[in-house]
C-alpha cells in the first residue's frame, strides 16, 4: 500500500521527455513531464508491462537480396523479444516478398504479427529492369 514514484524516459518520439509517474497498488495517481498524450500512455504502459516494437531481418530464397527487413506490427512485451528472434531464425521466405506481407502470424499467442518492411523482388525480375 505504498505510493511508488518512477521516472520514465519516453521513447515515443525524439524529444525524450522525462515523465514522472506516481502510482499505488497498480492504480495510477499522477503523471507529469509528458508533452503529449502518447507520452502519458507510454509511461504508464512502461510501468505495468514494458513493450517494444521488434525489428530484425528474415532470410529470403531466390531474391535480389538475401534478407528482408521485418517488424512486429505492434509492440510486444519485452520478455518475448528473444523468443521471437528464435522463431524468426527458423523462417525462410521465397521471393518475391511484398512490403506489409505477414511473415509470422500471432506470435506466441499475442495476436501480434511480424510483417515485411520492404519489397524484395525475385532475382530474375531485377535483371529484367
Amino acid at each position: 500500500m505504498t505510493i511508488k514514484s518512477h521516472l520514465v524516459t519516453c521513447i515515443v518520439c525524439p524529444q525524450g521527455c522525462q515523465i514522472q509517474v506516481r502510482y499505488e497498488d497498480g492504480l495510477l495517481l499522477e503523471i507529469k513531464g509528458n508533452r503529449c498524450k502518447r507520452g502519458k500512455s507510454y509511461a504508464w504502459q512502461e510501468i505495468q508491462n514494458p513493450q517494444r516494437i521488434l525489428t530484425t531481418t528474415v532470410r529470403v530464397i531466390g531474391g535480389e537480396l538475401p534478407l528482408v527487413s521485418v517488424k512486429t506490427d505492434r509492440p510486444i512485451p519485452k520478455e518475448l523479444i528473444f523468443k521471437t528472434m528464435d522463431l524468426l531464425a527458423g523462417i525462410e521466405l521465397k521471393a518475391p516478398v511484398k512490403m506489409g506481407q505477414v511473415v509470422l502470424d500471432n506470435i506466441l499467442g499475442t495476436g501480434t504479427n511480424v510483417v515485411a518492411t520492404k519489397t524484395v523482388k525475385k532475382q530474375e525480375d531485377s535483371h529484367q529492369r
Partner: protein
Amino acid sequence: MQYDVDVAVVGGGPAGLAAALAAKEAGASEVLLVDREEQLGGILKQCIHPGFGISFFNADLTGPEYAERFIEAINRAGVKTLNKTAVLSIKPRSLTVLMEGKGIKEISAKAIVLAMGCRERTREALGIPGFRPAGVFTAGLAQRLINIEGKMIGRRIVILGSGDVGLIMARRSTLEGAVVEGVYEILPYPGGLVRNIVQCLEDYGIPLYLSHTVTFIHGNKRVEGVNVAKVDQNLQPISGSERYIPCDTLLLSVGLIPENELSRVAGIEIDKRTGGPIVDSMMQTSLSGIFACGNVLHVHDLVDNVTQESIKAGKAAAFFSLGERGKREICVPTISGKNVRYVLPHLINLMDDGEENVTFYLRVEKPTGKSKLNLIKNGETVASKIEPLARPSEMISITVNKKELSLQKGESLLFEVTEI
C-alpha cells in the same frame, strides 16, 4: 542517349528522393535522380529500426518503409531515375557521370541538387594506436553487413562512440547473439538521442561509459582486445585508469562527415563547422543553380528534418530551372552567437521565394538545461523560443515569419542560446 533535364538530383537517399519529388511537383517537367547504387533509398535501406516519419508522416516507420513511400511517390510523379550511375564531376548546368554498361556521359541540367549524404569517420581519422587486425568496423558498415548482406560481424563487441548508429548497432548485435561489452564515449555526455540510450542500451543492460576512450587495439589477424581508459577534461587518457577488455570486434560510431568531394572540386564554398556548402534560405550554394540538402549540407539527427529541408531545395531548384533566379547580393547573414555551434541557412535571401516563413536549424556548443533561443537584430530580440533541454546531439529548429523579421540589406541576424 542524351540527357537534357530541368533538374538533376545527385544521390537517391532521403534527401535526393524528397528534393526530386518536390522539384517535379513544383513544375519542373524533366527531373532526373542519379544514384550510384542498384536500389534507391540510400542509408534508409539498412536502417531497419523504427522511429522514422513521426513528424513528417505522423506514423512510426522503419527506414525501408520511409524510403519505399518516397520511391513509390517519385515513380507516380514521373521522376526519371538513373541507378548504378556515379557522378564524377559537377559544374553549373552539367554533370559528368559514369553509367554501368554505358561509360562516361554528360548530363545537362538547368539546376542541380546535391544530396550525396555523409560518410563515417574511421579509425584512421582518430589515430587509435595499436595493431591493424580485422574486426574494426564503422557502425554503419556493420549495419550494412548485418541488415543487407546477412553477415555477422563478431561475437564479443566493444563500441567506441555513442552516436545514434553505434547505439542502434549495440542493440542489433545483441539481438543477433553477440555480447556487447560496453559503449565508450570520450565526451561527458552521450552523442545519440536519449531515447536510443534507453531502448538500445538500458533495455539490454549494455553499460555506457562517459569520459572514456579506446587507447590501444590488440590482435594479430583478428582483434583480440582493446585498452580503454578514462579521460580528463582535456579528453586526454588518465594514466593508471587503463584496463584491458577482451573482444573480437571494435565498432566505431565517432561522427559523420558530409561527403563534399564533388562540391569542393566544383569550387563550392564550404563551411568548416558543418563540413557542408554555405547556403542561402533557398538552399542555393555559392554556385548559381546548384542547391544542397540533407547530410551533405550538415549532419542531421532526424530524417524528417532532412525531408523538410530537401523539399525546400527541390522547390527552389525547380523555380531556378523555370527562370526564377535567387541572387546572393540580396542576402542577410545569420551569425552564431553564444552557445551556438552553427546556424543554417547561412544567409537569408530577401528575394520573394513564395514562402511566408523561414526555418532555421541550429546546434548548441554545450548541453544546457531549460534554455531560451533568441534571434537578435540590431541588438533587439526579434524572435525567441524556449527549449526544455538543449543538447549538441539534438538539432533545434525555429520557424519565423519573414515579415516579422523585416530584414533589410546590410543587416544581420544573431542567434544565441542562454540557460534560464
